[in-house]
């Protein structure tokens, strides 16, 4: 059913998009490592360095997030994150069943519709809920002493709980994400796309 006449190479991930993806990946890795060290799970950088690295990275990352959101909102990319339930069932069925039978992915990637319905749900939640909560709770953490002095909040426990819960959720996402990117045409197709921006897509309109 596949044939070469119906495919072409297009830019799926724009240059800035690739930049923010990898910059964010690096920073989330650093934030997770230093954050979990501060949480007392292991010793790696030393507590003081972990705190300082975490704080600096956190600020840089929240600056980057402002750019990311601006980019997403101003380029119309936000439409890609608009969640829909249509096709979710088919995508789920593929991951739980079809993939073992050698079926093709039901979603056809195009520059205008690069996420499958499951990704839309996942990314809209991660990008517009988890990350925002994480940044806000991170700021509350950083300014806790000032907030306490101002009488706004007495204890740090709630902030810590939200921030840690979110961090675990993000770590879980990283684990699953690293696996899900192997679902391209070849195992490395998607990661190549995120590096070069280019992917070969099927141009057949009809299914």
């Amino acid at each position, binding site marked *: 059913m596949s044939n070469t006449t119906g495919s072409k190479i297009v830019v799926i991930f724009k240059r800035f998009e690739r930049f923010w993806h990898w910059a964010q990946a690096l920073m989330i890795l650093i934030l997770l490592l230093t954050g979990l060290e501060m949480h*007392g799970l292991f010793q790696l950088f030393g*507590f003081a360095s972990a705190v300082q690295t975490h*704080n600096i990275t956190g600020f840089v990352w929240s600056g980057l997030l402002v750019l990311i959101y601006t980019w997403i909102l101003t380029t119309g990319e936000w439409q890609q994150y608009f969640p829909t339930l249509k096709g979710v069932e088919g995508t789920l069925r593929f991951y739980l069943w079809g993939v073992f039978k050698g079926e093709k992915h039901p979603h056809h990637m195009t520059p205008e519709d690069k996420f499958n319905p499951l990704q839309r749900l996942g990314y809209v939640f991660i990008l517009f809920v988890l990350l925002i909560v994480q940044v806000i709770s991170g700021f509350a953490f950083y300014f806790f002493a000032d907030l306490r002095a101002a009488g706004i909040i007495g204890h740090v*426990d709630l902030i810590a709980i939200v921030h*840690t819960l979110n961090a*675990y959720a993000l770590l*879980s996402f990283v684990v699953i994400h*690293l696996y899900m990117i192997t679902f391209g045409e070849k195992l490395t197709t998607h990661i190549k796309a995120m590096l070069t921006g280019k992917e070969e897509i099927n141009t057949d309109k009809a299914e």
Partner: protein
Amino acid sequence: MKYKLVTILILSSWLGLPPLASAEKNQNSVTKNANMTADHAKFEILDQDFDYAPDVTEACLECHTEAAKQVHQTFHWKWAEKVDGVMVGKGQNGFNNYCVSARGNASCMQCHAGYGWRNDDFDHAAEENVDCLVCHDGTGTYKKSAATSGHPYYEDTQLGEFLQPAVDLKAVAKSVGEPQRENCLSCHANGGGGNGVKHGDTDMSLVDPVHSLDVHMSPEKLNFSCQTCHKTSGHEIAGRYNGKTSFIDHEKDMGRIERDGKNVSCESCHGATPHEIREIDNHTAKVACTSCHIPEMARGPYLTKLSWDWSTATQLKDGKPFTEEKIFDGVEAHSYMSNKGDFTWGRNVTPQYRWYKGELKQKTLQTVIDPDAAPIDINPPTGDYNDPDARIWPFKVHKGKQPYDTQHNRILPIKLYGKQGTGALWSEFDWPKALTAGAESNEVAFSGKFDFIETNGFWPIKHMVAPAEDAVKCVACHSRDSRLTGLNDFYLIGRDSNTWVEVFGFLAVFGGLSGVIGHGALRYISTHRRKNQQTYSQGENHE
């Protein structure tokens, strides 16, 4: 050699000899105190062959007409203060878990800044009873005797193996000047029966501390005297006492007159946010400077006493008292004495941490205790996380086991020092007699029934501030194995976690991981199977 010295020091001091002294001695007091305008060696009135110390006091008062009246108003003289309607202090009602009570034990009074407080007949209003010399002696030869409740040794006296020479009062009188560290430490380092016993942060090593032991007092740099922080004004000396908190707030003094003579804190000079790192400054609203900057107690060569169990005292061998020694942290010290019981000691000891706002709630001999609540906190610090005045402070918690009245549920004072027939424990080794006599001299009831109860004595740690690079590391508190274990009224990063969050995290991360691994394995197997099938059915279809 050093160990032996320490043993002698410990032994000697309860015999009435403020230890460490003074072979090397001192130049003229004026050169020593460059800001003094008088050389007392040139004063005619001091050029007498005194044979009685109160006579020296009278000579002092000829010029310093108000000095004794001033001293009479101080803690150094009164040894008790009215707190919540009750007199409390060494002189009255107060107790600890070392020798329990000073009152009635004439030997304890050797450290009173007066002459001859043997019993309640002592005249606190007599000006000549003030001991000027113990604080102002510049020769280092002036020692107060236990046997005479604070008079100097008027004759050569054999103290164990040590011969204490008679005092030369003329030389001492001519040497007077501003108090030196040796003067303060002769009592304050030797309380509780010997060098370093009590405080954990105050011992004879502060006479000449290396920089790593005490950044403020070390002659290598700042060379502070005791009075640099414990500011004096008309013989009143800044310091914590019953009814007087150790610090008034956490502000810089900035030379404000109303703060003269008031107690100082680290912040008086350094301010509350002296670090150049915001994350560290953020601690100071809740963590005292001392908690990080005094990483261990007793960091000098001397031990501090960590526990004292009176219940094992009075054991005799062949009818005679005996002692046992052990090595504690590299230094030999008594582990058992028939007259005192069992001890443990330590050096470089990690403090315990409590909320504290400069105030200790001292229980008294009148306080009814709940024996089921043992160990009894004798003088617990006050405050908690929500108290803006409280900080987390390091403490030496001295563990005691001491007699109490099982009928009245009150701590019992002990008659320790005295001749045969007085009931003194150290002469007769008889608990009922010693407790009866102790109760009598402290004017408390004793039912005749007693037992021993565990107690905690709290000693705030504030001396022996270490260089910044030796400060306590973050992970010492911010870890599962935290120094602050037990202080549970707040969430501490690195130490604390929420069980539900951890369960969620575990399931999300490891659940995700095992899901991914399982899915990947199935994918691998099914792909291989399909490939194999394709190989078998080669020819009709390809790739």
